[in-house]
């Protein structure tokens, strides 16, 4: 990446965008959340730390827009797993820009998401890797990779994106 290009990136803008995405999830506003994703954008939560791809190895989540849409609708239906209050509070920290070519920025950050579901609060923690595409003076999410510390461990149900 050219330093020149990099200088043009204000990490504050990136942070603000990541906060906005987290805020959509904390408000369980999937309508607004989906809008932050590119048409060919995807959300991926692998099972193993070094997982090469979402297609030939099982993942916890791998949603393209189609599945995001189904999930968005399902979230408003009567699924018995979704009649409970779903609440979260995301803290995003240690945001670092890994690369920026003037169009695509790869950004890593750490996150702690306190997630409340079925009367239990669980802390999901790990690392985000956002591939962001410049879109006017904002961004679109090309891919969000979510590596939680215990992805390969026995986990309970995950009823919403982290």
């Amino acid at each position: 990446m050219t330093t020149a290009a990099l200088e043009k990136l204000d990490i504050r803008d990136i942070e603000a965008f990541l906060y906005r995405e987290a805020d959509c999830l904390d408000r369980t506003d999937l309508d607004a959340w989906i809008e932050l994703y590119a048409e060919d954008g995807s959300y991926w939560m692998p099972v193993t730390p070094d997982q090469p791809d979402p297609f030939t190895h099982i993942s916890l989540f791998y949603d393209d827009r189609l599945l995001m849409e189904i999930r968005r609708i399902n979230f408003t239906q009567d699924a018995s797993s979704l009649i409970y209050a779903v609440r979260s509070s995301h803290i995003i920290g240690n945001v670092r820009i890994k690369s920026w070519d003037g169009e695509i920025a790869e950004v890593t950050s750490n996150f702690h998401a306190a997630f409340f579901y079925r009367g239990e609060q669980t802390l999901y923690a790990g690392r985000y890797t956002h591939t962001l595409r410049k879109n006017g003076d904002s961004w679109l999410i090309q891919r969000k990779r979510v590596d939680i510390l215990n992805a390969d461990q026995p986990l309970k149900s995950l009823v919403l994106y982290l």
Partner: protein
Amino acid sequence: MYDIAHIQNLVEPNRVHRDVYLDPQIFDMEMIHVWGKAWVYLGHESQIKNPGDYYATTIGKENVVMVRGKDGKVHVIHNRCAHKGVKVATEGCGSVKGFKCPYHGWTYNLDGTLQGVPARAGYADTGFDMADPKFHMQKVAQSDSYRGFVFATLDANAPSLKTFLGDAAATLDNMCDRSPEGEVEVAGAPLRYIHDCNWKMFIENLNDAMHPMVAHGSVGNSTKRLAAKLPKDVPYPREAEIIFPFNSSYQFFDAMGVTGLPYGHGYMGGKQSIHSSYSDVPGYWDAMVKSYGEDRTKEILSQNRHNTIFYPSFTAKDAIQAVRLVKPISVDKCVVESWHFRLKGAPEDLLRRTILYSRLINSNASMVGPDDWDCYSRMQESLRSDSYEWVDIRRGIGKEDHEGQALRSFGTSDLSFRNQYKAWLAYMTTSSTKERAA
């Protein structure tokens, strides 16, 4: 420990007592009588390809290791150091020349026999004997594998694996036959899913044809609603192809039929299942015909068992190359592991379909699994109600047909429940290996 009469009173022809799901003592007895006697699936030979490769896992609550010996043979040994009982190999897979205990360094050969003891002179004149099995990581009573699927039992008197599997084996056969090379291999790490319910609720659910259209109605409707918005001319996405069948009608599932086999095994479907109308994968047919010829290929692909239950430890699909293991933790907790397989010699796209299926249906983050999970948990919770102490399994009772050792009925019958509890009662009311050993 309860006496036989107490156990017998828990199972009636058309209902089972809540205690089979709630009573910690029943759970402890199950570990000895059911999980201590049945053949339990441990893993697949492709997980331990080379000598020294091992996979450390459990049979019920017993820590064991399945390991490839120098001679290439698969050994299943207890994961316990003979010195002071330390767990020698840690969970999961690894590769070693031999086993070494981390505490005092006793070493064991890949077949579990004792290899060495540090400063052995200290054992002079103590009756210590390297050859004595009690100083080994002991072999489990029996182990064997079928088409690469490794099983073991803690019961020396258990019937042969072939006898145990019976016609359920045909599901594993078909899964493998769907590979042009006749073999499958594990594709990566499993999904692990904690369930807050008794292990039997999960196993029983897999042949419960009365629940999909209700418990999974939501995701079906959501998918329909979205599909309606999609352009009409293009074919449905594979996602829809996978999700829609879960909303099939009662008639559809009835037609599929349910089959009960000895030892509590059973399956739904046979010729027709929720997987039968998947669209074709380019190149697959040709590869199959090349290996098997057209007739045999047709025959292979025509088998479609929905879920086959290998009681008590796992379930398998054939048209989708995936198995699900249940690991009992306590009376109200178990872990479900979903493993996936590659059809050797087949287009990678079949693995992609298996993976997609499992992500959409089995994953903790799917829109299907969590609804089952919710039902199990709520069953576990309200079973304690004193208003009624029984779980009903009468549906279709008396409407079974016998075909040899198999029992058949319409798909939404409770036949599978009754068949499982018949086996459960037999396990629970016959003497344990421990008793016989004593």
